[in-house]
């Protein structure tokens, strides 16, 4: 569970509602524990976005987009697919993680397909939406029913990457949640109703 002590804030004891760096540190562990192989040349310091070749095939990308959209679907705001969560997941797999961790994630995707075949006799993407949801509900319950293991389960990783990808997107931060890039002041005790939603940052 993210904790206010986790080392992301700019001050060692500054409370933070969320904790994305710690989240990804744990995601790294989930993706296979020790990260060993050098993956990429560093991105330029700063803000230069970069095209990447990606780690996933177009079918795998579609699978990720579909699962992510089950986790965070469209409501009165767009869902995970619409904000491109699958592209974020693809980029993180390609640029952030070593080969074995990537392979573990892709094996997890294959397992989703295997579960779909067992449940509805077809690959996940060809199952009906309700059947897909049933497969994922099972996987979700299994994942969180088990005590923590040394390597966190695939679906937990998946969920975490989906949440990060969604809530750090512009839509996620500014429409689904509340975002104030330059608050200008600090009020330590205001009615929740006045803010309305979870702070994005």
């Amino acid at each position, binding site marked *: *569970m993210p*904790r*206010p*002590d986790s080392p*992301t*804030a*700019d*001050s060692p*004891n*500054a*409370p933070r*509602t*969320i*904790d*994305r760096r710690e*989240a990804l540190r744990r995601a790294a562990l989930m993706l296979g524990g020790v*990260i060993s192989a*050098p*993956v*990429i040349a560093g*991105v330029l*310091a*700063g*803000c230069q*976005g970069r095209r990447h070749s990606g780690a996933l095939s177009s079918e795998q990308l579609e699978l990720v987009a579909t699962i992510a959209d089950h*986790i*965070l*679907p469209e*409501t009165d705001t767009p869902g995970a697919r619409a904000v491109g969560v699958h592209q974020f997941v693809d980029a*993180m797999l390609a*640029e*952030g*993680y*070593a080969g074995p961790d990537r392979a573990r994630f892709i094996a997890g995707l294959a397992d989703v397909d295997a579960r779909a075949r067992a449940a509805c006799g077809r690959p996940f993407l060809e199952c009906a939406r309700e059947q897909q949801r049933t497969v994922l509900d099972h996987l*979700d319950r299994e994942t969180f029913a088990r005590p923590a293991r040394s390597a966190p389960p695939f679906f937990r990783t998946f969920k975490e990457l989906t*949440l990060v*990808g969604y*809530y*750090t*997107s512009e839509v996620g*931060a500014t429409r689904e*949640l509340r*975002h104030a*890039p*330059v*608050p*200008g*002041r*600090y*009020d*330590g*005790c*205001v*009615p*929740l*109703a006045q803010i309305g*939603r*979870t*702070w994005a*940052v």
Partner: protein
Amino acid sequence: MIVKDEPYDAIVVGSGITGGWAAKELTEKGLRTLVVERGRHVEHGAGYVTESLQPWQLPHRGQGEPALYERDYPIQSKNYAFSEATRHFFVNDREHPYVTPDAKPFRWIRGYQLGGRSLIWGRASWRWSDLDFEANLRDGYGVDWPIRYADLAPWYAHVERFVGVSGERLGLPHLPDGEFLPPWEMNCAERAVQRGIERAFRGRHMTITRVANLTRPHLGRGPCQARNQCARGCSFSGYFSSLSATLPAARLTGRLTVVTDAIVHSVIYDEQRDRAVGVCVIDAKTKATREYFGRIIFLCASTLATAQILLNSQSARFPTGLANSSGEVGHNVMDHISKAGARGTVPGLEDKYVYGRRPTGTYIPRFRNLGRPGEAKVGFLRGYGIQAGASREGWARGADEPGLGVALKERLREPGPWQISLQGYGECLPRHENYVDLDPTRTDQWGIPLLRVNCAWGENERAVREDVKTQAAEMLEAAGCTSVETWDDDGPPGFSVHEMGTARMGKDPKTSVLNSHNQAHDVPNLFVTDGACMASTSCVNPSLTYMALTVRAVDHAVSELQRRNL
């Protein structure tokens, strides 16, 4: 090729929090001053390249690249302020190696750029008291400080007036009040815990951290915009750094020269004159060597780097390093213990939230070994303070719980419960056996011998750590928190980025390196005012004390120069 520059009145090595202050004070007192910085130039404002980027504008949404960090930033990336948005203000560990024994890790956090670590510091600003300055004398560890609080109090005030420290006056003798801007506000959960702790434990307090973030405009700077992303740099000058405050003041005098990408290899000592006369510098980019000459020299390169420079400045008179007739240069390395405490849930207050991102937390001042009648006997020397902060859980909690779909999305729209975490910062005893020295064979890419760090926690630090956890948990329980648990991340030395002690002050030239004015016993025109000078650590964050010692040392140096004593 050796290029000789004209002599300066003063040379300052390093542009971090003490180098910036030395430059300001020296130039304002009329000295033509050269600041030598080993890192690159950073322009205040324009150099803060990630400052205005929102999460979706960062290459990996701020998540960074774990594999890259493992390869190039295995030490720096452990620091709380390191992120995708701040990586350019931390060194690449692979390019800047140092040596530690396998069993004694040391995390040396560094920022090689103009402004140094003043760009990425935690900004907590506390005065020391005589409980701290008398600690070595009282229990016999280390050497007695050659100064007391009264010697430093006016200089603390001098520094606070310029920095702009926000805080609350408490009237505690062991945590003296300063000259404060209005404090930041505690949030509802912190106030509830504060009431609980102060009701249950007589003599314990919780206050807002005294911090160098401007709660109102101050000398043309600020105010702080409550973004809590200081380590990216702040073009509002909302927090104090060399770039926002001291170097601009020095530049205004017209007497400041700054060179960047200039690595000080050693201090040049002239045996005939028995004085330090300049510095030998290696260009970080071309690796060419050059020299700069000056009448007085201030080493403000940071605790370990200053020791490295002194140890590498060898001569017939000082074969084991400049100003090292005591043999204490490099010894008595200290850091604060941290990364241990307790956390819990603050019940209720579900209808309350915060606006803005306060750039600091709260603080429980030291309550152990204050010398008060009837206080609890504990199995360790000295004490600790506790940094704390409460916040409501955000969307990230969703990855730790079952559930998906519309229900999950709706749930995460609302913040989760209030969580509070307490983290102790404890005093470390000065011990000769914790030391740095130079590797006899290996050098960095500029030919400078690698620093070897040999430093480990001792019994007292371990005992402090245990008490931190127990007391933190007891206080949270007494304050009505639920799900209280202790935590301990077992941080090795260096983790607190409060390393100190490698050229300690003292009364006796046989057992210390610097006198009461931060002047080398052996070399009167050589001053060390960074953390190297510290004879003990107190338990409070040290930067404000480094700053006060620096301005006091400059005052002394300039008056000695005028009296022709240097």
